[in-house]
């Protein structure tokens, strides 16, 4: 008679994410599930809408990463109309995008994932949140973080109309340009961003890397999966958030595929399970072999660790130095360690800040050549970006008037969904024995999925210090046998 342990973030009440651990008769883990009870049907109600509204409409999928959807949609429209934005427009889009990567990653580093390391996985639960982080790094730094994010987001508002649901991008370019005096503001804030990124790396070094216990945890087998990795690279195989070709490396780190996003249907497919509304992406040529890692399973990962695995190098100098330190410390590529995600995210913050500064210093962004005229729609348009949480693909088909007839959206967390499910399953199996829930189970399981910065309902990463979890052990009659929670 199986016992069921439900581990669910309190946010699951609104249908966000939920873990269920099934015990066998011996009280060991039979299987752990991460289910996502959410479905809003964007592809369905996109039908009949004019293609050019997609950058605004699909931004509403996620209020935390609206810029990712906004930009992927615009690139799909460029493809739909067969146009290339003028150089200034492309740079303005990239400027907005790097600012977004910077502030969004900071949110995870300091407020969501960070508390596990900055405050520590064994710290009192009441402190394992942003308040604890501020206590640890000092109120001055806490205030600086809040001001940094606000300044960047205010400039994003200036450029994109709104930061929560931008209106900047259109097929063939952008709606608004940048005046010279505005550009100076961008440069000033970008310089502060680069400083803040350096400070973040220093903090990570001091707090995490100099602590052998933390390093051991990062290297632990509980948080390791040898899978394929997917991400965008530029023509020199450098990490690029805005554009490039999709590169796939195998679990040994060798290039397996490299293709333009227009061919994504040849390489990626979605698997359906009856216990979750999320579909699991996998590599078509390897095939779906269940929730397993290794060369023979088509499961792959995206997001920071994956991006750093698929690329040969970073695109900016200071990020490159940080990347080399990361790879060398972790014993070379590919890095299969889920918790290394936090470190990889810091490396990416540096690249985003450096790119932000480079683009702000480029006088061409003040050009008034912002749009390439569009002609008739060509029927199909496909676009891709690297969202903070991984590769994001928008695919639209339209009629001759440019009205959507079919849409397909492959979102970042969907790429990671199978690996996240495995991570949760493995952590549970290694931590739960004889029906006993280890004291640290809840946070250890939390850490297995939090590292991915998963975007189940997009909202789960707005501000929580720690995701409040409750584990309920039930017998087959549904009676609660034991209840453990990580909050009072």
């Amino acid at each position, binding site marked *: 008679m199986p016992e069921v342990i439900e581990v669910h973030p309190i946010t699951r009440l609104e*249908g966000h994410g939920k873990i269920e651990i099934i015990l066998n008769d011996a009280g060991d883990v039979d299987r752990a599930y991460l289910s996502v009870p959410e479905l809003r049907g964007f592809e369905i109600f996109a039908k009949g809408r004019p293609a050019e509204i997609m950058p*605004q409409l699909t931004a509403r999928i996620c209020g935390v990463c609206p810029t990712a959807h906004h930009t992927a949609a615009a690139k799909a429209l460029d493809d739909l109309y067969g146009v290339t934005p003028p150089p200034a427009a492309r740079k303005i889009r990239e400027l907005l995008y790097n600012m977004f990567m910077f502030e969004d990653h900071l949110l995870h580093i300091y407020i969501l994932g960070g508390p596990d390391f900055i405050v520590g996985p064994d710290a009192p639960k009441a402190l394992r949140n942003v308040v604890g982080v501020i206590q640890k790094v000092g109120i001055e730094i806490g205030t600086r973080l809040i001001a940094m994010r*606000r300044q960047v987001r205010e400039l994003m508002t200036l450029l994109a109309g709104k930061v929560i649901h931008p209106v900047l991008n259109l097929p*063939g370019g952008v709606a608004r340009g940048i005046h010279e005096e505005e550009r100076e503001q961008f440069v000033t804030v970008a310089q502060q961003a680069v400083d803040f990124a350096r400070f973040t790396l220093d903090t990570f070094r001091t707090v995490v890397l100099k602590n052998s216990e933390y390093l051991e945890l990062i290297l632990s087998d509980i948080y390791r999966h040898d899978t394929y990795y997917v991400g965008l690279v530029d023509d020199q195989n450098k990490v690029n958030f805005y554009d490039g070709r999709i590169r796939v490396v195998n679990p040994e780190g060798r290039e397996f595929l490299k293709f333009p996003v227009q061919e994504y249907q040849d390489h990626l497919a979605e698997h*359906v399970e009856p216990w979750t509304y999320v579909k699991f992406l996998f590599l078509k040529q390897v095939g779906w072999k269940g929730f397993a890692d290794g060369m023979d399973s088509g499961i792959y990962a995206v997001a920071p660790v994956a991006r750093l695995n698929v690329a040969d190098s970073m695109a900016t100098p200071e990020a490159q130095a940080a990347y080399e330190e990361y790879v060398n410390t972790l014993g070379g590529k590919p890095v299969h360690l889920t918790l290394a995600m936090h470190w990889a995210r810091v490396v990416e913050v540096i690249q985003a800040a450096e790119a932000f500064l480079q683009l702000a210093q480029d006088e061409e962004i003040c050009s008034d050549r912002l749009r390439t005229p569009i002609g008739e729609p060509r029927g199909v348009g496909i676009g891709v970006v690297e969202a903070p949480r991984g590769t994001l693909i928008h695919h639209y088909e339209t009629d001759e008037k440019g*009205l959507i007839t079919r849409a397909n959206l492959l979102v970042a967390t969907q790429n990671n969904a199978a690996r996240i499910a495995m991570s949760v399953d493995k952590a549970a199996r290694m931590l739960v024995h004889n029906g006993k829930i280890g004291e640290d189970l809840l946070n250890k399981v939390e850490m297995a999925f939090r590292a991915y910065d998963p975007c189940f309902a997009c909202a789960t990463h707005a501000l929580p*210090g720690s995701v409040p979890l409750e584990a309920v052990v039930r017998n087959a009659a549904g009676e609660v046998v034991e209840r453990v929670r990580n909050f009072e």
Partner: protein
Amino acid sequence: MKKKVAFYWCASCGGCEEAVVDLAEFLLDALEQIEIVFWPVAMDFKIEDVEQLTDGEIFASFINGAVLLSDQEEVVRLLRRKSQVVVAFGSCSHQGGVPGLINTHDRQDVFDYYYHNGPTVQRNGNEMPTPTGAKAFHVALPEYYGKARPLNQVIEVDYYIPGCAPPPNVVKDALLQLLSDSPPPRGTVLAGAHSLCSECPLNETKPPEGFKIKQFVRPSQVTHIDPDTCLLMQGLPCLGPVTRSGCNALCIKGHMPCTGCFGPLDGVRDFGAAALSFLASLIDSNDEAEIQRIIDEGLPDPLGTFYMYSFPGSLLNEVLQKGRQKARAWREREETVEAQTTENQ
């Protein structure tokens, strides 16, 4: 004593949560006056903690997102009981929001496409996620209804903060008004009282009385939007004249037309109908075929244009849902008759 405040989300994108975070330093200052007793996204308090409060103990609950699931309905009813004031926060809670466009589709369409017919789906027989199917794996999956409702269709609402998402200045002003000694009358939409044009930097260049146009243009079809001239004068379907002010014309400062996320002015029941009738009044023609052509070319998606944020709360939605009910009842009756005929034979 500090006033107790709760934040809660229903079916939302998380943008309204970010809107609160975007208060930045102001939020830290506000904590001198308010005590947050429930905020699932940010704090560890649970439903049980809310249940333990006395009725009316919470000063104000700010609820965002449309209501899509039964458990969301239970929580908002609980918050209503515990709160002196309930505020619908953001477009979805105020009017149903963008995800409310799903109300025009059948639930089955969503499932067939997502799990069987989508371009990248590797179909696994007839398998699709269902609460019953999930049960076999000991996983409890909630039922998906596929109909979004604004908050005031579920509980009584005292105030509204409009916007998708509400910008920081609007949220800040609303908080200050609610916390003041003389709060505004119940039912108030806590934003501007006039149309967006009143605060639009292009208002000086607005069309003269009797202005008519022969063509609406889609923003993608013009390569340059003149940032110094009213967008309506340029043929762009800007909904500013029928939309409530308060955002300081953010989208227009981004050189894009207003799409109406702040909803209607006081006294207007159906935003989409007001928007439609406003733009229709600008059309310079009495010829039906010509009017049709102007609409087809410039406004090819009336539903999405006029009801982008407000469909679930609209009269049109009521008509649609009633029609569907009737059709269902009719179908059932037909089936019963058919079954009886077969039986009699």
